[in-house]
């Protein structure tokens, strides 16, 4: 069984999805989803341990040898992403039981878990596959189920948000297929390792730069890099709380992983940075993303929307690290991948608790919640501090690495923008804190602390924020290993 872990981690959630639909009872479907997610998380821990001790795991699907068969490749970077996705999944499903019952009608709950499991399977598939076309298939599995999940939101604007995401997401995915097709026509292979070997021979044709461009645009649309982020704020705002917590901490992260995989493993850092000069596109866009979307976040009146804009800014930090193109920069990007999943997961789950009690996350309705829901708002404050990058939280670790990576290349202005972004984060986090703790209005009568079933998962992530902020040796170790693998500097 252990040698089949790379495929089982995808197949178990995929198989659990129709079971959850067939069971057709909210609690039974929930139990199936919980079992699959917890199992996948355990499998992910097993995979990380194996990768750290043995190095890259290659798994041939159905014993068809690569490059003809589809190959699954788990290296430090993919194991890292699998760990993030399954970890968030295993925390969000327990949370979803109570949260979804409040926000969804009972007949939709089994289908909610089905779409959730499909989305999970798709995201994990992107992380473990070593086949370029397989990436597209898994991308569409995860995207289609994500559109359905977002459309479940209680507000009717969830429908238009989902539609907008569907149109933009499908265009992005189609751009990715065009890029993969052009690579195939030049090399005759879809296996990533094989592509990496054969691409240099045809790199100075016109087709390969065009393929590269299509892939870049498609993937940056999926990861919501400024200015292709327009689908994200509405989708995060109107989706059900559990869905926002899950998608915000996983979907864009997996797209960032796709960016790394294609640009570093398939095309190679030399082609991406020296020939195509990717850094000249990524770094300016990332900096603009950090500044403008943080500024937009400051002016939001809806707390979930505020956090959504902040997500676009945080994606800017990840892309910035990748754009620097050094081991330290990519390490910072990968660290922030994990750290941002922890903090945004915690923040959106805290907002889900607020939604559960008062049915809204608009700032003017959150007055007095600091007294009425102390644990929920304390979770928000710690998550917010982490978002700002205060020492002893995970946010500090990733910012520290990012600033170091910028200074290593003598890019003082970049480091300054990172710090300025943190200042803007202080402003928008403060807005929520001010509304909850310092508003003069009394909380609406009868509002009490959120139930334990919501608080425990939220606090699990909050404590992870603190734990990995104090003892970052494990996370930095894996992130550095992953960055070295991606840049070809290590085993």
């Amino acid at each position, binding site marked *: 069984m252990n040698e089949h872990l790379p495929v089982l981690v995808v197949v178990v959630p995929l198989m659990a999805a129709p079971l959850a639909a067939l069971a057709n009872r909210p609690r039974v479907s929930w139990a199936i989803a919980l079992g699959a997610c917890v199992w996948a998380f355990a499998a992910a821990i097993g995979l990380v341990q194996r990768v750290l001790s043995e190095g890259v795991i290659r798994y041939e699907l159905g014993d068809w040898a690569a490059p003809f068969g589809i190959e699954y490749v788990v290296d430090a970077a993919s194991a890292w992403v699998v760990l993030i996705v399954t970890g968030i999944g295993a925390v969000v499903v327990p949370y979803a039981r109570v949260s979804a019952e409040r926000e969804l009608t009972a007949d939709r709950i089994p289908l909610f878990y089905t779409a959730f499991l499909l989305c999970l399977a798709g995201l994990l598939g992107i992380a473990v596959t070593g086949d370029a*076309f397989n990436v597209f298939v898994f991308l569409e599995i995860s995207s*289609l189920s994500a559109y359905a999940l977002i*459309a479940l939101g209680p507000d*009717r*604007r969830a429908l*238009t948000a989902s539609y907008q995401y569907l*149109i933009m997401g499908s265009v992005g995915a189609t751009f990715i297929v065009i890029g993969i097709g052009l690579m*195939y026509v030049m090399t005759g292979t879809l296996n990533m390792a094989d592509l990496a070997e054969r691409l240099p021979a045809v790199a100075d044709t016109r087709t390969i730069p065009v393929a590269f461009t299509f892939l870049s645009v498609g993937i940056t649309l999926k990861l919501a890099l400024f200015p292709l982020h327009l689908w994200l704020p509405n989708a995060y705002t109107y989706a059900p709380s559990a869905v926002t917590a899950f998608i915000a901490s996983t979907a864009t992260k997996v797209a960032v992983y796709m960016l790394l995989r294609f640009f570093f493993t398939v095309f190679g850092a030399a082609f991406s940075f020296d020939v195509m000069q990717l850094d000249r596109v990524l770094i300016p866009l990332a900096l603009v993303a950090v500044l403008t979307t943080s500024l937009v976040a400051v002016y939001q009146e809806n707390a979930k929307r505020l956090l959504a804009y902040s997500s676009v800014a945080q994606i800017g930090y990840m892309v910035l690290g990748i754009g620097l193109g050094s081991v330290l920069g990519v390490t910072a990007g990968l660290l922030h991948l994990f750290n941002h999943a922890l903090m945004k997961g915690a923040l959106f789950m805290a907002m889900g608790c607020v939604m559960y009690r008062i049915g809204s996350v608009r700032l003017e309705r959150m007055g007095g919640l600091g007294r009425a829901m102390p644990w929920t708002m304390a979770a928000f404050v710690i998550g917010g501090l982490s978002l700002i990058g205060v020492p002893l939280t995970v946010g500090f670790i990733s910012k520290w690495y990012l600033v170091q990576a910028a200074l290593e290349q003598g890019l003082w202005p970049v480091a300054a923008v990172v710090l300025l972004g943190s200042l803007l984060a202080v402003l928008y986090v403060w807005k929520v804190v001010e509304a909850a703790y310092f508003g003069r209005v009394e909380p609406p009568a009868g509002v009490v602390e959120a139930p334990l079933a919501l608080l425990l998962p939220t606090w699990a992530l909050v404590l992870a924020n603190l734990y990995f902020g104090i003892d970052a040796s494990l996370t930095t170790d894996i992130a550095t290993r992953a960055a070295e693998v991606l840049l070809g500097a290590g085993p």
Partner: protein
Amino acid sequence: MTVLGLFNYWVVIFLMMVGFYTLIARGNLVKKIIGLTIFQTSVFILYISMGKITEGTAPILMDSSEPVLYSNPIPHVLILTAIVVGVATTALGLSLVVRIKEAYGTIEEDEIQDESL
């Protein structure tokens, strides 16, 4: 000759632009889906036409000593998957349009925006 010899790519580019333009310029949600479908179809043709070899036959194993020239079946198989994905996307998109019509009473983008304010 090269311009005419590459006519399949001209078809692809034409369809791609038609689809993409419809997707961007039209405010009607169903027309947007039509644009998206045309856009995706152009990519299907890109894949299918690049697998074809002049005078190549179907890739069937035959007992002949002569080497047989056949078209590459892999792009066709890939596109079979992509067609399934495209159908699923269209179905999901259209069902969203139905729900939007139920919730807003219209499928025109500008009217929906007016209603949301």
